[in-house]
């Protein structure tokens, strides 16, 4: 009975599918796509430009859309960071290139090069905006607040998650588990376009009166809940609305991922034959599914506070709400979110390291269980963000203990990566360099995390540049290096061409060195007492308080120079990326000699992925198996008959 039902659903779905395609065909007979003639399955349909590249239902195209979306937002978020880095190094000097002079603002007299550029591009209405945010070309404190808030918001919600989960998840899951597409292709498309809508709403916030959200990416109440504290009006509302939309996007995406991994695996693809990157994406989809709705509830309450006159997060004379409640809700989402940012990076690094060490991943099962443990512990550590918030002190001890427990599965993973590389035939390809960078930077970021988990230490380094260094070592040194490595590694499968390796190596080394020059000194700043979110480190006093930050002026200049190097180095990657799509060397089917299923599909991967759904016979990391001639055995290769086994 049950089986009959399933089969009939299949037929139903199928009919609808066919129907949609037939419609397309009727409309678009003129478009021919001979170049992807590798379609093996019987029902091949030509697709129009719009249905192929814009409103595509194909998981590979949606993955590429997410990738390009994320790369664009990476430059927006990175650009904001460079702007406020200038302020931190030279708080009183006009911004280079775009900071217009006061004469120009006063009477339109062109004095500097920046004036000329501004004159050429914009009309006078825009000058009011400049007058408010950059009088005489110098960034105001309020503008600085907005910039660092939006830098983090964009990097977390619009760069790292869309690339790691949206792009790699979409591209890799169906290919690596051996199926034709996601379980719900329409929801998949919806997920992408909701993310685009969220980005548009977020972008509009820059241009509303009173500027964009300025209460930090954490949006702590009452800063965020009551406009009187930051002076921000609709910017903060749009920030919340945009994140709500992004929440819907994540929700439909994660439903899709979980269903696909549970229901659509190829014959023989058991859970413990899944590549680790699929495991990581599966776990992250569960985290996203369960964590984001909590943020959504908090954002809804925040919007009510701002627009409907409720007092959930502000205190009033008659009692009112609780600002700490926002922190609890936010970090109950926020800490799983931190693992959402790093777990797929761990998965990608595992692939890169195993493939390029030509060895099975060391301790496959322990890698999986470690990820599950990290995901589970992620739910009970949120209070470590709130040691200084005035929450009940006894809770601090609990959160300190659970937080330090996370070091155990993290260390298991780190030693497993080292064990994988140990005595391997390591190929120092660009993806491998990124993989090694991931592991080493993750170790630094992870260790600084343990320092901060100690409540007594945290009293000292809380809200200093130490935390800024920590988060960037994990999210840039970890996630972004994994993203770069993953892009180079899977590029031949995505676009059927290689990226230019010389450019990739240059990009890697500049990025690696500039990254460490940018963020390592921040540890020293933090321990020295340089507070985070200070807009003018040269000020001797703020109010009545004598500040320490001016002692670090030279280091701030060094960091800013490194940050600009780091930022501009990314242009190499982007140039290489787009140039290689059209001009790169044509790639063969399995250039890195990888065992997993995505490399069994033809290159470029046709609609429907596989000529025939593969059958899986072995685990994902069969490299350098003793007694075998080849140093890699595809997952699809059957086990030899038992009688002939042995030697």
């Amino acid at each position, binding site marked *: 009975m049950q089986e009959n*039902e399933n089969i009939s*659903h299949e037929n139903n779905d199928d009919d609808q599918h066919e129907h949609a395609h037939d419609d397309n065909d009727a409309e678009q007979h003129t478009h021919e796509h001979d170049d992807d003639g590798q379609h093996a399955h019987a029902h091949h349909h030509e697709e129009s430009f719009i249905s192929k590249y814009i409103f595509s239902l194909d998981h590979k195209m949606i993955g590429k859309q997410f990738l390009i979306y994320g790369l664009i937002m990476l430059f927006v978020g990175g650009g904001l960071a460079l702007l406020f880095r200038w302020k931190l190094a030279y708080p009183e000097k006009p911004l280079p290139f775009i900071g217009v002079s006061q004469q120009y603002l006063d009477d339109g007299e062109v004095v500097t090069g920046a004036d000329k550029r501004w004159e050429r591009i914009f009309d006078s209405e825009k000058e009011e905006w400049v007058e408010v945010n950059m009088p005489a070309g110098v960034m105001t404190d309020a503008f600085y607040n907005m910039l660092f808030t939006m830098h983090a918001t964009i990097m977390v919600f619009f760069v790292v998650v869309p690339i790691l989960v949206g792009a790699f998840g979409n591209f890799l899951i169906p290919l690596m588990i051996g199926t034709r597409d996601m379980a719900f292709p329409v929801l998949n498309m919806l997920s992408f376009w909701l993310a685009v809508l969220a980005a548009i709403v977020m972008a509009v916030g820059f241009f509303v009166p009173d500027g964009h959200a300025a209460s930090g990416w954490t949006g702590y109440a009452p800063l965020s809940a009551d406009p009187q504290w930051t002076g921000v009006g609709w910017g903060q509302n749009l920030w919340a609305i945009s994140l709500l939309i992004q929440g819907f996007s994540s929700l439909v995406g994660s439903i899709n991922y979980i*269903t696909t991994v549970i229901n*659509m695996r190829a014959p023989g693809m058991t859970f413990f034959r899944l590549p680790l990157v699929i495991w990581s994406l599966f776990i992250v989809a569960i985290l996203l599914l369960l964590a984001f*709705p909590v943020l959504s509830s908090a954002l*809804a309450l925040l919007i009510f506070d701002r627009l409907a006159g*409720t*007092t959930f997060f502000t205190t009033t004379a*008659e009692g009112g709400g609780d600002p700490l409640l926002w922190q609890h809700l936010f970090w*109950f989402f926020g800490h799983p979110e931190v693992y959402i940012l790093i777990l797929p990076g761990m998965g990608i690094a595992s692939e890169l390291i195993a493939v390029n060490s030509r060895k099975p991943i060391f301790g496959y099962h322990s890698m999986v269980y470690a990820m599950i443990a990290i995901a589970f512990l992620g739910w009970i550590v949120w209070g470590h963000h709130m040691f200084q918030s005035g929450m009940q002190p006894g809770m601090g001890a609990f959160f300190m203990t659970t937080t330090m427990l996370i070091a155990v599965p993290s260390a298991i993973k780190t030693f497993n990566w080292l064990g994988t590389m140990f005595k391997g035939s390591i190929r120092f390809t660009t993806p491998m360099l990124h993989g090694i960078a991931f592991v080493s930077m993750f170790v630094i970021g992870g260790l600084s995390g343990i320092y901060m988990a100690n409540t007594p230490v945290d009293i000292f380094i809380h809200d200093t540049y130490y935390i800024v260094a920590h988060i960037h070592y994990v999210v840039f040194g970890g996630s972004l290096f994994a993203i770069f490595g993953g892009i180079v590694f899977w590029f031949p499968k995505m676009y059927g061409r290689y990226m230019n390796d010389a450019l990739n190596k240059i990009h890697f080394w500049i990025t690696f060195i500039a990254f460490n020059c940018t963020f390592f000194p921040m540890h020293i700043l933090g321990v020295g007492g340089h507070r985070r979110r200070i807009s003018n480190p040269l000020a001797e006093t703020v109010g009545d308080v004598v500040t320490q930050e001016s002692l670090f002026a030279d280091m701030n200049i060094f960091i800013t120079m490194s940050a600009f190097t780091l930022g501009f180095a990314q242009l190499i990657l982007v140039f290489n990326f787009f140039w290689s799509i059209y001009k790169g060397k044509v790639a063969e089917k399995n250039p890195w000699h990888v065992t997993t299923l995505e490399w069994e599909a033809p290159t470029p991967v046709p609609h429907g992925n596989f000529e025939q759904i593969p059958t899986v016979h072995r685990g994902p990391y069969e490299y350098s198996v003793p007694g075998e001639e080849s140093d890699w055995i595809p997952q699809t290769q059957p086990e030899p008959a038992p009688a002939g086994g042995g030697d």
Partner: protein
Amino acid sequence: MIHSELELSENRPLSNAKLGILILLGAETMLFAGLIGTFLVFRMGNDLWPPLSHANIQLPRVVTGINTVLLIISGYTMFLAQRAVQNDRVKDLRDYLIFTGALGLLFLIIQGSEWIQLIQKGLTLQSGVYGGIFYVLIGCHAVHVLGAVIWLIIVIGKAMAGKYSSISYTGVETCTIYWIYVVALWPVLYFLVYFA
């Protein structure tokens, strides 16, 4: 396109659609967990509930209790609708679906009229955290009931058109799962909010 891969479905205890809905319910649960957690924080932080400024407010326990019973009955009739389609009793399916939808609408109408009375008595969204969390939490559930009713109307339309039979009723099944979730959530909120 997938004809040759029917064997794929062999090891699936749940169809994609059913599994997808169940996963969605996980997210819904966390959404309500956030709001219920907020409610509990406010409730435990205030000895006087409702606070002195709204001491005259008495939430309509009896009417809402009756409403609760109505909703639970609708959950049962929805279950009967699914049983009917499983046994190919197509007419029963339509009747039960329509009855269920009517109960859902009645629930919303009664709750709406209660809200109007409460607002007239002076309990509004701006009545401190007491009024705020009452309207947001109960309202969030009401929006879910409304969504479920709209979904049910679509299912009724399809049932009228004769789209369901004992071998093809995924649409009824997924809607039933969602409906029963929304129904089962309500008594929790009722006892928490009206009796806390």
